[in-house]
């Protein structure tokens, strides 16, 4: 019972936090239209990321359902400005971006759609620099477990 109430609370907060941004934040349309990852990243950030071990990307190695793949990104980098998720092989790779205020704990958790196996990037902009880490996620036909 606890957990359900708590979860509902989080969703409500999430909605409140996300709502104004969706409507009013400067939304870089080019990013969400670009059909390759590099164009999308350049359109938003004007720079390509450098690899960082201070980003944690939690995502299944093999998706149970490509239509709803749970992903959580967190980081212990300082001065986090945004957290973004890019699915390299999606038709429009730039999937989500969250602007982070200075007092926000830099953790985001969302569910994304994946049409096929792909490298998934977690991007963190912190202190003016763009960082990333990545994981390969397999979207597969099933059916042959031992």
């Amino acid at each position, binding site marked *: 019972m606890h*957990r359900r109430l708590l979860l509902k609370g989080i969703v409500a907060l999430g909605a409140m936090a996300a709502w104004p941004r969706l409507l009013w934040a400067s939304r870089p349309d080019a990013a969400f239209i670009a059909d390759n990852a590099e164009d999308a990243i350049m359109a938003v950030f004007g720079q390509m990321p450098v690899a960082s071990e201070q980003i944690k990307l939690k995502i299944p190695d093999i998706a149970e359902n490509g239509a709803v793949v749970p992903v959580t990104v967190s980081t212990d980098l300082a001065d986090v400005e945004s957290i973004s998720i890019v699915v390299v092989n999606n038709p429009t790779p730039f999937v989500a971006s969250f602007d982070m205020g200075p007092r926000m704990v830099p953790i985001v958790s969302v569910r994304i759609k994946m049409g096929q196996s792909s490298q998934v990037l977690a991007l963190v902009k912190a202190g003016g620099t763009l960082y990333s880490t990545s994981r390969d996620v397999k979207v597969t036909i099933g059916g*042959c477990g031992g």
Partner: protein
Amino acid sequence: MNRRDFVWMLGCASSAGLLSGCVRGELRDDPYESASFGNVRLLHFTDCHAQLTPIYFREPNVNIGIGGAAGRPPHLVGQHLLDHIGTARGGRDAYALTYLDFAAAAEKFGKVGGFAHLKTLIDRQRAEVGDGNSLLLDGGDTWQGSATSLWTRGKDMVDACNLLGVDVMTGHWEFTYRAEEVLQNIERFNGEFIAQNVRVTEDALFDGVSAYDEDSGHVFKPYSMHEVGGHRIAIIGQAFPYTPIANPRRFIPDWTFGIRDDDMQEMVEHVRDTEKPDAVIVLSHNGMDVDVKMASRVSGVDAILGGHTHDGVPQPIVVENSGGKTLVTNAGSNGKFLAVLDLDIGKGKVKGYRYRLLPVFANLLPADAGMQAYIDGVRKPYLDKLEEPLAVAGTLLYRRGNFNGTFDQVICDALMEVADAEISLSPGFRWGTSVLPGDTITMERVMDQTAMTYPETYSREMSGAELKMILESVADNLFHKDPYYQQGGDMVRLGGLNFSCDPTAKMDSRISDLTLDDGRTLDAGKNYKVAGWATVGSESPGPPVWEVVAEYLKDKKIITVNKLNTPKLRNISGNAGIADYSNLLE
């Protein structure tokens, strides 16, 4: 406690831990008897696939290891394995562990497994160390694989495990019954069903679906604690991580799985901090290569007792990690083996171990009367159906191996003939017993290959491109160099279609030279009529596959296999996971 202080005593280095070491002294009352060792005995069986009565089971001649898994157990077949453990060909142990001389050895040494015989062995092993000094662990795939388990929805096995005295289990094919049936069976089970890596989805939690722990989302108890021989033993459960992908999600829509090795690490630390165990054991259904990788990433586990990949591995692999060392085992399938891990435990740590993988030879172990009576009772209402003769095996029929076994070929041939299809597909399951040449193929033996909750057949048009995509996907699930991306099954079985395969290549470039049996090249843009069964998406419309196979067998009367649709293989010459295979290319 410094975990690096472990003294890893190889008490078993002299023998392979099998029977031969004991039998050589000749004619003791119990050839399975051993000198005492340590103070805690863990008994482990796994993947029995509901085989209540003794059976034959041929081990594979193709079980290829790729990358880091090449050249080490479980990817050593036949003579390679015997050489590795220093066991001679021709004896009982070689019969249990390999495919070599299988039909002749089976005639000589008889059937293996059977719960009445297993019960006798388990009771003796427990009596040897005295009350309260042992635990019996079941790695799962226990409620599925036989006709009676399907017809009783796993209940025959739950009751059999209660009689056997199973203390703890985890699962995989258990989840191919509907969720409410799984929970009812667990209710019926006297032991504990544990899994740290099965959670209720957040959507389902919203909707009020029940969980063992609503805060963590665990569907089942994640671990259990046991006082054994005065020591505290923690057992953490790890169910098959890819159940909703390898098997239909529709039966268990509210549950989500995954390897979750971060969660495993947290669980180990939580257990060590709060329970102060003297040993931490993981009861796993990951499959051996996944367990080996997990053992390298998770520290603080003394042993991972594994299953899923059906590997009869005589000795543990010792894996080093940041916290010390972890033993990784795999204990075969079909009730063929009982693993015995004897631990010498001091306060808060394991000081030494001895591991034996004991083959369950039915003719060396008298049937336990109580268990036999129970099994007879289970079978009685179904006996006419089970014993119905369908055909005679004109050759050895078996399934296990990375590519088509002979029994799969029969299933594929049956699907093609009955559905009048050009091509057939059958899943690369690793369960399914063997039938000796000249023996009658009964309905029970057909059910051993097919008894499951989504047996419906289909017959539909597929393009050449679609077929290639299926082969590539399944090959990647089998041969991906990172075991976390594997699912632990074998290659999809084919009828009517031939191909070349390079297991060492990457996704989408392993499969080539696709040709039909009549020599035509498979055309990517053309459609073909394909028959198959066991779809994991929605239910297929056709009759259950056992009806199709039974019809075919009755029609043929004597079953021979003229051609196996096994691939030509590239780039694996010298791999110790393949032997006696005629289609090797350089």
